[in-house]
């Protein structure tokens, strides 16, 4: 069975300078697409990946990453809308590069389709009532 999942990888300081991600392709036959990456030598690194491949290979690949000391989180939990603060104005609609905010033509509310979210964080400070929160 084929899978496509978006995950957040956190690299501890000690392995930031080691080539790890390429082995997902080489050893586990997985495709990856880098959605976002922050790396500073001697500090922690963060990478957001979309990984595609067979479920079996995916599981092995994740197992390898975990054993290498990388912390893995599912991406969809990363950017969360605080429903109490959101006024459904719509300022986020044109800010989001993946179109994760969609105006509902019936309710006129803004739906947050978090499966489209790549956790780039652009909505966090662009949201006037600061309803979008980055949860690590």
């Amino acid at each position, binding site marked *: 069975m084929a899978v496509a999942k978006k995950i957040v990888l956190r690299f501890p300081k000690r392995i930031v300078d080691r080539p790890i991600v390429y082995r997902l392709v080489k050893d586990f036959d997985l495709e990856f697409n880098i959605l976002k990456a922050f790396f500073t030598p001697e500090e922690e690194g963060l990478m957001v990946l979309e990984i595609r491949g067979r479920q079996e290979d995916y599981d092995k690949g994740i197992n390898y990453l975990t054993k290498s000391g990388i912390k893995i989180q599912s991406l969809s939990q990363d950017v969360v809308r605080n429903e109490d*603060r959101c*006024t*459904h*104005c*719509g*300022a*986020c*609609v*044109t*800010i989001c590069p993946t179109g994760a905010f969609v*105006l509902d033509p019936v*309710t*006129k*509310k803004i739906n947050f389709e978090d499966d489209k979210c790549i956790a780039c964080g652009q909505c966090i*400070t*662009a949201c*006037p*009532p*600061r309803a979008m929160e980055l949860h690590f």
Partner: protein
Amino acid sequence: MTRTIGEINEKIKLGKAVVVTAEEIIDLVREKGLQKVAREVDVVTTGTLGPMCSSGAYFNIGHSKPRIKLGGGRVYLNDVPAYTGLAAADLFVGAGALPDDDPRNRVHPGEFNYGGGHVIEELVAGKDISLVATAYGTDCYPRKRLETLINIKDLNEAVLFNIRNAYQNYNVAANLSKRTIYTYLGVLKPNLGNINYATAGQLSPLLNDPYYKTIGIGTKIFLGGGTGYVAWQGTQHSPNAPRTDNGVPSRGAGTLAVIGDLKHMNPRWLVGTSMLGYGCTLTVGIGVPIPILSEEILRYTAVSDSEIMAAVIDYSDAYPNLKPDIVAEVSYAQLRSGRVNIQGKDVPTASLSSYSRALEIAGTLKTWIENGEFLLSEPVAPLPGIESGISCKPLNERPIEE
């Protein structure tokens, strides 16, 4: 067909008033015609919720023992400076006030996470606010320093007093430059990457009463989840702005100054707001009932988004440099469709005004009136109209000669 506000109030008291929202009235008039609907409908309710910077609150904190004269001293509320040029225990906090140590735009774009609008929201939410004051001391007010928590329930008066709200139409912001700009109308991407608009269009109070025939000084309104009144015309009130054939202004025109008891308001309708790279403000919810006194008044309330035009302005040059140029004129129906063709480019649109909350306000006001909880008030004076000759002037800058 004519009726008076007094007659409408008698029907409200009997629970017999027919009330519809400014959205519902559009189809109703299309289906049944002006004449029939004018006989049936007594009140049309409007609503809007958006960032309104010229908002603020004043309050009286009560006298400390020994007394302190805050007037002429310095006062901070959760580190946000309040205005103290008043008597001993009175304060005013404006929505745009920022803590002295806020980095502002030193690293551009600044985030502006907390300011006067947020103080007002937290106060209304019933949270304790820290007050730190310094004063110079007098014989009758000897104290020079005060540090205390204050809470809205303990204040003698807490009053929302917004000197410019509910703009009758507004600019649509675009960015023709090659870099992203950060404005009070949101983040604007380069090369016409997006355009942002900021009124509730067909639901907005003054767009439903374009000549101010029913909304005047003393009109009772929904304000911040409680009730308030129109206190005066708002600053920059400009009835002589260009209008389309239906009488509706196609630029920013009339404005309202509004006042109401903060103690009866709710943070759902007064939201502390941060505009990236611009500053802090307060998102305010306002709803105004329009009494259907005649067919003419009804016709104004039946205006729809396709009949309300707004000007697209370049916020990278024309706006900051006070140039009169406009990029295009578009209707709210086009804006609300999500994409507008401008200069041959398909440009995505975004709103800074919440249409869904505006609907909720118009619906709430409708329920209040239907249940007999909200009577209409007769204005005590009209707002200045076209005949006043008033239009908003630019600053006449003159050198100061020593």
